[in-house]
């Protein structure tokens, strides 16, 4: 457990910590983007690159969450986690992109996998 900073500690500490160490480091990029986006054309070549980098970053977050997952998800075998994501992509490819079906299939594989193979 990370302890509160002593001279700022008090009943409001969790909220202060949230603002300082979670809201600001996240929100700053959205604010900077407002400055950068001014004058950018909606279909410029630069935006194609920006969109590709954003897509790759989101895909990277997915990979990181599966390889080093939070909380009780870490107790699920890694092969079951990967199989769940593979099932989601397979359903998207084969079902003309039915999102709900893909999510349900991935969840079924994950929950079924834990039942079959047990937790670590």
């Amino acid at each position, binding site marked *: 457990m990370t302890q509160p900073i002593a001279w700022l500690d008090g009943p409001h500490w969790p909220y202060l910590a949230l603002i300082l160490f979670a809201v600001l480091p996240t929100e700053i990029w959205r604010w900077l983007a407002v400055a950068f986006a001014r004058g950018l054309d909606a279909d410029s070549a630069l935006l194609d690159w920006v*969109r590709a980098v954003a897509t790759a970053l989101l895909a990277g977050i997915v990979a990181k969450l599966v390889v080093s997952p939070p909380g009780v998800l870490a107790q699920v075998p890694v092969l079951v986690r990967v199989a769940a994501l593979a099932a989601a992509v397979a359903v998207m490819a084969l079902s003309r992109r039915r999102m709900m079906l893909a999510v349900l299939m991935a969840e079924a594989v994950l929950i079924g996998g834990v039942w079959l193979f047990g937790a670590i």
Partner: protein
Amino acid sequence: MDDRGKGSGCAGARTRPSRPADDRMSVSADWSWQRVALAGARDALSLPAWIVGFGLVGIGSLAHDVGYPVGSAVLSTILVWAGPSQVLFFASIAAGAAWSAIAIAIAFASLRFLPMTVAILPLLRRPGQSVWLQLLLSHYVAVTAWTEGLRRLPPIPLRQRVPYFLGFANACMTVSALGTFAGYYLLGTLPLPFAAGLLCLTPIFFLVSLTAGLRHRGDVAALVLGLVLAPLCERFIGGGFDLIVAGLIAGTVAVFVGKRRKAA
């Protein structure tokens, strides 16, 4: 709880059987902004809002685990509005990381919002729009509003896009705040397979949203390269820089893959 989301989601899947139907005009040009905002909220509630909401149920339980109040969990959903940042915040506190390390890790994981927001704001921009409105709009940028916005906004008339986007995003945020609140009290009581299933909803939903938004070979390359390079960079670079390095390499290569395809 799980059944409710699945039920409503199935209803959404029934009314929108396929992608062509999904891409139809969801608003009419002569509608008032109130009606457009409601249409945005309705489209969100047809599926995406429920998935984000269930995806953020896990945040409530992570906050509960470190003894933080339920208000801080719900506020994190409203003010941070980024699943991975919230996971990092509460999971790092549980792991005993230094505050500076927590802030830096979150800043690096959130860098994606710079390109994401830069990419979507031109779709929402109108002449004479104030900076304050743009700052407000930028706050709602997260995976759902981004992937769904890039897909749904272009066919909508320019002056109706802001109310549609705000209706859509606020519906997602309201459901998610309720989900975080419920997770704070409920998730600890769930059997492991279901608790793990809720926590895994975030990466599953990210991947499904990204797949739904793929338009050409360059997008596919960005997705696949990002998936492969991120764990490799985490292994060999680390130090918080790994994700952004992976994203820059994968995104740049993907643009060239897309270009070559267009030229051919």
